[in-house]
């Protein structure tokens, strides 16, 4: 037994020796075979396509990469540094909001001789960093290096409706680099993830604070995501507005202009026109920024350091006095339809009428001129209605995405891309409402009313017969998926 332990120790030392060759030993190439859903005909999936990216080994025999590298995966293959053997991997956790994912490889041989990279600290601007990865699909690892150009809040393209801290560098970051580590002093200073069209010599990587937040989040076995306060913060530079609020002209404090839904704690604790003086002990400037590791960054950076359900200390100015508030932050899952989604969309077919959820993905799938194809009313339902009171918001509007023509519906006069608001007098705000309304229909007709005011009807018996035929005719696996 003692001998065995000794052998293990020897083995471990030898691993360290192998790994000491450099971080590239821990960098992996990822091939992902994907199939994406069709948002207009949601039972259909695209032909299989392949994509390549990078990743790196972290502690616990796991691989870290970008969420977008492993999204919509049907088959995931990873390759070790200079090893031709393909290993099959699975996604253990995926955080689309922060574009990070953790993979597992079933074969323990994959991790032999490979050591985990340590997550380091936020690099300082103008310091040098080196990227490791497999850009443009080559089989040889590629290195690029450059300086840290700036550190700011950026829109993350993967969710498209989230902004988190990101580091900009002039080290080349190209497609295929995604998910690879950015190294400084032998430690991970970030994960390469996106570029920006029109901005030359600029790539972006995900900083350690976001990586650590993600890793801490998944410790309990579920990924919650990055929470938000549900407040709209705007500058408070106008002297008259400062005076009206009883604040000195000292450039401290940004104004909370609006409160969003659904954040009940925020509505209870915060009021419109409260002024944010401090967040987590950091003084907030009149433009909403704080000094964060030497960088002037929007104070949103501090809200993303908190985990779902935890509170953040705020110092607020209200009615001429400062007060301390502990504001609980929660992940907003209600805005999923305004960002990129990574679950196949729900659908319900009624007599050949295909209904799905109105979403950014749905509109995006209508092509480049999508804004010409949908009414202003429809866009309003998706983008603006939820900014009204909760009572006025229509939760997740249902859109008629397609009519599968059949003799029983061929003269249905309402066209696709219309928003359904009523079925047989029952209000429809979600796909679930529609499912329930169909289930409770007892009469001879389905009577539809749309957002435009148009009404139409289908004979229920004809519709049910049509569904059967159409499912067969178009190889549709099921009449609904919710």
């Amino acid at each position: 037994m003692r001998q065995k332990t000794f052998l293990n120790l020897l083995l471990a030392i030898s691993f360290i020796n192998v790994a000491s060759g450099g971080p590239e030993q821990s960098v992996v190439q990822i091939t992902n075979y994907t199939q994406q859903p069709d948002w207009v005909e949601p039972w259909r999936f695209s032909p299989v396509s392949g994509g390549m990216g990078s990743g790196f080994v972290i502690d616990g025999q796991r691989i870290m990469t970008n969420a977008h590298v492993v999204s919509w995966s049907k088959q995931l293959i990873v390759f070790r540094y200079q090893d031709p053997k393909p290993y099959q991997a699975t996604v253990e956790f995926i955080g689309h909001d922060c574009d990070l994912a953790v993979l597992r490889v079933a074969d323990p041989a994959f991790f032999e001789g490979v050591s985990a990279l340590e997550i380091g600290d936020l690099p300082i601007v103008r310091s040098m960093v080196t990227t490791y990865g497999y850009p443009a699909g080559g089989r040889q690892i590629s290195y690029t290096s450059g300086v840290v150009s700036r550190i700011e809040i950026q829109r993350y393209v993967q969710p498209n409706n989230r902004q988190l801290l990101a580091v900009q560098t002039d080290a080349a970051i190209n497609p295929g680099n995604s998910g690879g580590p950015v190294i400084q002093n032998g430690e991970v200073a970030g994960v390469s993830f996106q570029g920006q069209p029109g901005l030359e010599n600029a790539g972006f990587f995900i900083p350690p604070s976001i990586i650590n937040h993600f890793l801490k989040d998944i410790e309990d076995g579920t990924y919650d995501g990055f929470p938000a306060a549900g407040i709209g913060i705007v500058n408070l530079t106008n002297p008259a507005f400062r005076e009206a609020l009883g604040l000195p002209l000292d450039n401290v404090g940004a104004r909370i202009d609006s409160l969003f839904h659904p954040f009940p704690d925020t509505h209870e604790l915060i009021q419109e026109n409260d002024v944010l003086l401090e967040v987590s002990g950091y003084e907030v400037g009149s433009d909403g920024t704080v000094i964060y590791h030497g960088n002037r960054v929007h104070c949103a950076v501090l809200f993303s350091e908190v985990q779902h359900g935890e509170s953040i200390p705020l110092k607020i100015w209200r009615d001429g006095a400062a007060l301390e508030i502990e504001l609980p932050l929660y992940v907003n899952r209600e805005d999923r339809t305004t960002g990129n989604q990574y679950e196949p969309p729900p659908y319900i077919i009624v007599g050949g009428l295909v209904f799905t959820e109105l979403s950014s993905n749905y509109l995006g799938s209508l092509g480049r001129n999508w804004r010409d194809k949908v009414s202003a009313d429809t866009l309003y339902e998706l983008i603006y209605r939820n900014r009204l009171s909760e009572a006025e918001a229509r939760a997740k509007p249902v859109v008629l995405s397609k009519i599968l023509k059949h003799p029983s519906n061929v003269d249905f006069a309402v066209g696709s891309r219309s928003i359904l608001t009523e079925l047989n007098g029952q209000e429809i705000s979600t796909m679930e409402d529609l499912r329930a309304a169909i289930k409770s229909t007892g009469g001879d007709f389905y009577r539809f009313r749309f957002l435009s005011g148009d009404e139409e009807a289908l004979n229920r018996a004809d519709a049910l017969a049509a569904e059967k035929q159409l499912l067969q005719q178009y190889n549709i696996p099921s009449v609904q998926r919710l």
Partner: protein
Amino acid sequence: MKHFAGLTIFCLALLPLAGGASFNPETSLVEIEVTKKLYDYRTPWIIRNDQVRKNGILIGPHRILTTADGLSGQYLCRIKKGGESRQYTAQLVWVDYYANVAVLDVAEPAFWKGMHPVALAQTIPQSGDLQIYRWRAGRIEERAAEIIRLYSGSSKMSYLRHLVLTVSSTIDSAGWSEVVLDGDQLVGLTASAAKDKLSILPAEFIAKVIELRGREDDAGLGYFDFNYIPAKNPALLASKGLDRRDVGVVVTEIAAKGLTDDGLQISDIILEVDGFPIDSEGKYVDPDYGRLAMSSLATRAHAAGESIPFKIWRDGKAQSVDYTLPRTDFDKDFIPEHRYDQPPQYLIAGGLVFQPLNGPLLEALGKNKPPLIDYYSQQKSFDDRSGLVVLSGVLPDDYNIGYEDLRYVLVDEINGQEINNLNDIAAALKTPEDEFHRIRFMQEEGVRHIVLDAKAMEAVTSRILQNYRIPAESQL
């Protein structure tokens, strides 16, 4: 048949205004040069100068007919006849922009010498060839036109519905009231052109506009203020208990133009209008012109204020209702689509530029207008308001620092008062709260609140106007 008779009597009222001699364009057709003011709704205090050349035709003594298109903002009209270089100053006798009809006169007797009016065709030809005439560089240009079809369409200048004749011709840059003739009779004036296809404002409609204008009761043009969906789908009729096929349309919206909610209700099936059966596409068989959409019946056979019998299906049974044809009133639009002969309205306060939301402003914004503005501009009403105002931009100054980036934001309230128009803003700014002006934008906007110093505003506004060389703080 009663209605057929009605139409015939109406046609008889349009007896030829001139003799039956063959048409000589040299003595009937004139070229009109319109000099006018042109407004830029993106910088509403800027007035530009513009000139338009179009055609007119004599239809009687001291009556030169042309389309209204291009006349808005005019302050000088000059007319050339016979290809001569001499220009005669003309007066605008009357113009109906919404119907797209105008009549001019020339006071100088010399102008009328040797000129002959043409007759307006009593009916619209539906097949065959027509001739198009216009003046070009002192010579008559004649082109052949082939009739495409007649349909019930919208006026180029408003939501009015009337018959439109489309023809095909290889004439270039047309649509400026070129005259269209069938032999010696005026069939209509060109209203617009797209490639080789021209839309003609028919003489029959023009005659109706002229006739209504001359009537003592000042009846005006009517409009069916309801929208409908075709009832081609038999299940839609059956779901309302009507066991028939291919009849009627279902009312989906009433009073969208704010004119009337008389007679009809949402969900009614319209089966007959004015004695004509309505098919499931909303068409009737016109005794003169065959199958047409019912919308043009409002202007073709009736005047505003008249009662039109409708047969509808409501509550599971056929019923008769009388629909009093409302007179078009374009000022009742929640978001006015057009503004003619009026400069854009604006009000500048502390560098904030406010403008009412209307069609010309939206047109100036083009395709990239903010989606929220797009949404509100298509609403038929909102909170019982009479209109909406946008903060269209900010003229940067120390006074409004922090607000420079606000553009095309919808105003909700100022100092607690609801804002429907610029006068509301002027009034609200007279009652500041605690020496501040508090402006609230619509709830859906990215920024909802701003505050300005009330005491300094007046002086600041003068300073900003001077700095940006703007002649006046408002145009109401």
